[in-house]
């Protein structure tokens, strides 16, 4: 009898995992990011509207494209604003979709640069004790997952890394089941933000104490002192700007914002190298640079130690960006 119960539990567990895996895999291969990219770049844009793109990584994602568009439309009705931020984006990645971007003929591109974007490799992690001042127990035991990977070859372990939020997939599939006609009209989670994947925590505003300890432990260090104009990411960025300018697209650079807790970890030299690199690129290609990196450092608008929240209470980021765009259009 006990054997029967144990077998039942294991079959239920394995079947549950298998169904979840299948559902997520099905959704990902049919409807997700790659699909959205294809859909976005191949869509028929309104020829009477001029397009403004915001590009960069997840920190650019936090700009509300519809808010900015609405703000601009108070004076200029012929502009569309799209946020094309992609989580983890770097110049060397963005360059791969440059052709598609240019083919859609945008009028203006605002490129958000984070400290880490100009680096080639991941640096050492910031320790929680450095930032919060809390005492963290010394880790003596090994990480269980590492042990597991040592015992079982990597290939035999199912990769769940793409299924970071099965709930979203499930809810979307429910919608499709309710109305199968919507399958061909799968749209991104936010209007005018085609590559954004909805996560509820992005809309929260957190304070700077305990809730962020875990996030902070995992975060990469921003920048190394070695960043130079000859670094591959800097070269890739120059290439992007040069190509865009050749195609008569106005380019504006901006450094993305950080909270005080993150800036605290950087040396003055780190910031100096970063800003001077952007200034040098600005001079070389005659593009404007706006600095946001310390603009909101003291404000309570953050979802985590590097991202502005997407909450309405953090709208200042989008509002300031809208003003810049408006000024640029006027000039």
């Amino acid at each position: 009898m006990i054997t029967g119960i144990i077998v039942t539990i294991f079959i239920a567990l394995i079947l549950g995992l298998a169904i979840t895996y299948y559902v997520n895999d099905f959704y990902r291969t049919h409807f997700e990011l790659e699909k959205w990219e294809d859909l976005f770049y191949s869509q028929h844009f309104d020829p009477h509207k001029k397009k403004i793109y915001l590009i960069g990584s997840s920190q650019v994602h936090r700009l509300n494209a519809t808010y900015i568009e609405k703000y601009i439309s108070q004076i200029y009705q012929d502009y569309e604003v799209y946020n094309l931020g992609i989580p983890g984006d770097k110049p060397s990645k963005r360059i791969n979709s440059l052709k598609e971007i240019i083919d859609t003929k945008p009028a203006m591109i605002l490129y958000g640069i984070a400290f880490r974007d100009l680096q080639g490799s991941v640096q050492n992690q910031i320790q929680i004790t450095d930032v919060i001042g809390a005492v963290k127990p010394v880790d003596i035991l090994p990480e269980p997952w590492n042990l597991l990977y040592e015992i079982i070859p990597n290939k035999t372990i199912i990769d769940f890394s793409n299924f970071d939020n099965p709930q979203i997939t499930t809810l979307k599939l429910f919608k499709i089941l309710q109305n199968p006609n919507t399958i061909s009209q799968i749209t991104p989670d936010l209007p005018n933000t085609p590559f954004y994947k909805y996560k509820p925590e992005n809309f929260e505003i957190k304070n700077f104490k305990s809730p962020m300890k875990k996030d902070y432990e995992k975060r990469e260090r921003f920048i190394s002192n070695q960043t130079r104009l000859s670094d591959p990411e800097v070269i890739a960025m120059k290439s992007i700007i040069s190509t865009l300018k050749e195609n008569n697209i106005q380019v504006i650079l901006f450094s993305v914002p950080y909270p005080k807790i993150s800036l605290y970890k950087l040396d003055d030299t780190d910031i100096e190298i970063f800003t001077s690199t952007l200034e040098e690129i600005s001079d070389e290609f005659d593009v404007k640079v706006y600095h946001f990196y310390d603009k909101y450092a003291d404000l309570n608008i953050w979802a985590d130690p590097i991202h502005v929240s997407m909450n309405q209470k953090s709208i200042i980021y989008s509002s300031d960006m809208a003003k810049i765009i408006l000024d640029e259009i006027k000039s």
Partner: protein
Amino acid sequence: MLFNSIEFVIFFIFVFSTILIVRDRKFQHLFLLVASYFFYYFTSNYLIVLLIYSTLLDYYVGKEIWKSSSKKRKKALLITGMVGNFGLLGFYKYSDFVITQFNVLGTFVDIGNQIPLLNLVLPIGISFYTFQTVTYSVDIYRGRLEPARSFWEFALFVTFFPQLVAGPILRANQFLPQLREKIENVGNKIKLRQIVISSSNLKLGISIMAFGFLKKMFFADNIAPMVNEIFNNPTGLESFNVILGSIGFGIQLYGDFSGYSDIAVGAALVLGFKLPFNFNNPFFSRSPADFRRRWHITLYSWFKDYLYIPLGGNRKSRARTYFNLWLVMFLSGFWHGASWNFVIWGLLTGSYLVIHRAISNTFPSLKTHQFFNTKIGIFLSIFVTQYIVFLSMTTFRVRDIGHMLYSMQKYVMLDFATSGTMQFISQHPLPVVLITIFWAIHFILYKIPDWLERIAKVRLAYWFIFLLGIILLILLFYNGKPQDFYYFQF
């Protein structure tokens, strides 16, 4: 090690398999003890030293109290034990709170110097195991309990992993006999109980665990983002939005904590141990006193037996009874955390109990009034009780005093505005649907209290469907972030 982590699943399978395969009694008990220490060490690393200190202290204090014939010495030993236990708890839990208050006071009287905070990490479960070990010494002092036969038995009582970090708070007389329940005299030797995994316990235990996981990972974790959005900055929200947040938080807290308790009770039962349940359909309480009896049962029975009754309980004057009730709730608020919002929560819930008791005393006929046995009467009792319970939950959740006052004002003084709330609901359909489903399930549980026992008795094929359903609900609605159990911070 979180119960809702893959590490715990692997750990539990390993412990279960070992106990199932190796039948040697001594090995089983020793293995459970080592596994429990590993469980704590995995999460808390060097802070395990405090757990061992607490165990050693109470084991020897209990033993000495038992041996001593002098009342004075017994008392002195008990006080030593309590100072040792509560001193540790106070130091780790309340030092920074006291320093902060002192610094605030200092700025008013212009002392100038600021005392630096200690920034101590609160050892996980210290509030729970401290209360647990204290009961052991007190019960021996009162002559209600014999000391454990060996240090290892006592250590297993303190560290038994299912209940170690967040209860249920066990009493020694509930657990120690289970280690020796089936002692057989063979010659002069007394044997420990052999831990036998039975099919009925296994099935029921897994059913309880599965339901606990469902409460935590399906309900609590998926309602939490909505609650966070409301209470991280409630200023400007409508009354109904604040009420929705309070109800959501109440259910989140219940799902989180009772889910943890269910997993603990179920895991223990799989291994052949019975732990007391911590909750009994609290959202169908008909009065504040009834709610106290149904929510975090083991904590409030602890306060009742070790504080309320020694203070005189209701045996003295009415005024003294009210004071006792109020004090107990104030201290229980403080037990939850070193923060003013918990103090306010304690005072508020204490006031509920005092007012309820005063009304009962002044109008004794109300207790037996026919109206309160009609459907409308029962509904009204439950509704009013829950309305004030959820109000107190607001103080439990909101740490910022300004936000708390705003939320409470909106909760009590209804503005009857709905547009913002409707928009909020349309943006958060899942948590709202989950709250509705939760109430339906809670109602079924209220009507059929033994439903889990019934499920555990069905045929394997049906039981498989029950398990698979729960697993799918958890996995398919998993939001990608395993949340800490709320009560770990206490």
